[in-house]
């Protein structure tokens, strides 16, 4: 049965999600930050983690964005095959939601119209939108505003199959080490392995929207996530990059089939303000 969804419903939800994501972290991120504040060994690192707790409380109570970089809006729209949209073009409806959310939520407009000419669009549009078709008659929207302090420190590596899992580990560690204090640690590290050049980058971005409390279902990937988190936290970078034992809160890895000749790896770094809100319409 075809189900009709009014696109104004999509706009309304995206508007609310923009405001929610920039003022409240998801429960898993909140828990991870609390745990980190307890376990951090460096006194200065601990102090910074406590300030991040305080920052979250102020953000929620006084409605001040958690971070002034309220990001470029990344939207994953998983559309059920039985859905029919009524109203404006879906892409316009999503962007209108971003426009309204960033205006009404007093969020920073950080998008420029052209990467070279650099004129601000003044409404934080367009969003970066990834569509996929899925089973069913619902639409699942994931909104992940992405700040660029950490986005700038992300990397893609086109490894050779012979580089194997050791090559992947090295790629992750190198990226985190180079990012250091610039990416506002403690970070969340999203990794994509496999696919093509662009697919592995998308996998890495999707990995960042996964809960930081859950591991991959694939046994060797779960082991890799745990091992990399341990190794990253031995780098010494610490909260704010000022030294300590909490450099990352989680390493989330997504994989996909790839070509016989390749081993693409993307490492998408996110700061401790790893924002994502999910709604199903």
């Amino acid at each position, binding site marked *: 049965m075809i189900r009709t969804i009014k696109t104004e419903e999509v706009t309304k939800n995206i508007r609310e999600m923009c405001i929610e994501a920039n003022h409240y972290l998801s429960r898993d991120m909140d828990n991870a930050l609390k745990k980190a504040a307890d376990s951090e*060994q*460096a006194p*200065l*690192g601990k*102090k*910074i983690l406590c*300030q*991040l707790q*305080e*920052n*979250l409380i*102020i*953000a929620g109570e*006084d*409605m*001040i*964005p*958690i*971070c*002034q*970089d*309220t990001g470029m809006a990344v939207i994953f729209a998983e559309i059920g095959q039985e859905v029919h949209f009524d109203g404006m073009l879906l892409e316009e409806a999503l962007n209108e939601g971003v426009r309204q959310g960033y205006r009404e939520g*007093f*969020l*920073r*407009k*950080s998008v420029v119209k052209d990467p070279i000419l*650099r004129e*601000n669009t*003044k409404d934080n549009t367009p969003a970066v939108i990834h569509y996929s078709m899925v089973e069913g008659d619902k639409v699942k929207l994931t909104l992940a505003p992405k*700040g660029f*302090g950490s986005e*700038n420190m992300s990397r893609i590596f086109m490894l050779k199959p012979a580089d194997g899992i050791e090559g992947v580990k090295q790629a992750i560690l190198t990226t985190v080490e180079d990012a*250091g*204090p*610039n990416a*506002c640690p403690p970070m969340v590290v999203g990794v994509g392995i496999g696919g093509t050049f662009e697919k592995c980058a998308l996998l890495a971005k999707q990995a960042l929207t996964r809960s930081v409390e859950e591991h991959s279902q694939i046994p060797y990937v779960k082991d890799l996530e745990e091992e990399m988190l*341990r*190794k990253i936290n*031995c*780098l*010494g*970078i*610490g909260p*704010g*990059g*000022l*030294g*300590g*034992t909490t450099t990352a809160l989680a390493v989330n890895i997504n994989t996909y089939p790839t070509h016989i000749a390749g081993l693409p790896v993307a490492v998408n770094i996110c*700061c*401790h*303000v790893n924002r994502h809100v999910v709604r199903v319409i």
Partner: protein
Amino acid sequence: MDKHIATPITAEVTKELHAGDYVYISGTIYVARDAAHKRFMEVLDKAEEQFVPEQQNEAGRNKLADVLPFPLENAAVYYMGPSPAREGRPIGSAGPTTASRMDKYAPRLLDLGQKAMIGKGKRTQAVIDAIVRNQAVYFAAVGGAGALLSKCIKKSDLVCYGDLGAEAVLKLEVEDFPVVVVIDCEGNNLYETAVKKYAQET
């Protein structure tokens, strides 16, 4: 060590600051980031064509510094672009941005009298050399703590370049604004020393 300092930040102040010190700043600081710095350079380039280079201003600096939109001598510049203020508040979320994007511009401004930079993240050797040469200081504020930091900002006024939106130049009055000394006037770099201290073999 915790220290309280007031602006302007003179060489007498910076020589007492050491990498790793936790510092609370009170007084006036100026906000400028990428696009504003680019304009500062254009203003300076233009002025350089008109002035005799050795002309000095009242502070004994190269007169060029006077063409900038705020008094640069002993100034602290905060690399930041706030979110819009809600009604009745001086500013929105107001945490630091990545300082390395200003590395290209910082040495020239330090040589013209700027004394302190507030941001986050690594700096180039050229900036570190300029810090030492000018007895300046680089502070880091906690990245991603924009709501907390906004509470320390009591007043915000537009200085210029309002057309740049979030990248405009602002004059802030701050009270006990918390920062950490990352690079001190002797060139000690906390990012390097602290990371080594907590790095472990795996």
